[in-house]
């Protein structure tokens, strides 16, 4: 699984909503195949955007509050937060370029 920092229902406010820089959240589950594919890509994204974007992961089995609040359905879902607001999301085992393009779009704004 991704080496990204794990966030929980209780730490989400502090780690994601209150973050000074944009946050990419990887919503995953333990026995989800494509989650393991995307985790590798998410680690690369974390290195690439170090200092510009914070990358975290949330286990939906253990943190149903946040998963429900943000209407997670298909997993993996990657969600980008900026200034405490959800600004974008991508679903499934997408290529790295798709995630990078999504981040670039919002960093530029």
């Amino acid at each position, binding site marked *: *699984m991704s080496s990204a920092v*794990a966030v*929980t229902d209780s730490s989400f406010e502090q780690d994601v909503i209150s973050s000074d820089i944009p946050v990419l959240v990887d*919503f*995953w*589950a*333990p*026995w*989800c*195949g*494509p*989650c*393991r*594919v995307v985790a590798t890509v998410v680690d690369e994204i974390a290195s690439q955007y170090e200092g510009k974007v914070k990358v975290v*992961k*949330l*286990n*939906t*089995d*253990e943190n*149903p509050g946040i*998963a*429900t609040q943000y209407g*997670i*359905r*298909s*997993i*993996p879902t990657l969600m980008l937060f900026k200034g405490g607001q959800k600004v974008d999301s991508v*679903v*499934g*085992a997408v290529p790295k370029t798709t995630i990078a393009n999504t981040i670039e779009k919002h960093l530029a704004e």
Partner: protein
Amino acid sequence: MSTAPESLGNSKSSDKSFEAMRKFAETYAKRTGTYFCADPSITTVVIEGLAKHKDDLGAPLCPCRYYEDKEAEVKNTYWNCPCVPMRERKECHCMLFLTSDNPFVGDKQELEVVEVSYEQA
């Protein structure tokens, strides 16, 4: 059926359910002309997830969705494997059954079981 949090957590399925789901997956891939992922660990993880749901909930609910109420979803049947999108359009977002145009597709319809572990948050 009980769904105490610990039963949904960090353990693997029974061997019996894993074998049943593996046999189902192999048969269903052949029947639909679909193939497993080129990386057998992905296929193994998904079959493990289906088997775990079969043990915990009585049905192989898709492990690549988040459900507010897993028991209600099982009764609803839509995401019980093979799910409606798979049966209707060969769409498996969980990457168990892949069509030959999928970038992750392999050439096998039988599982080479590899060791996979439960991933901690």
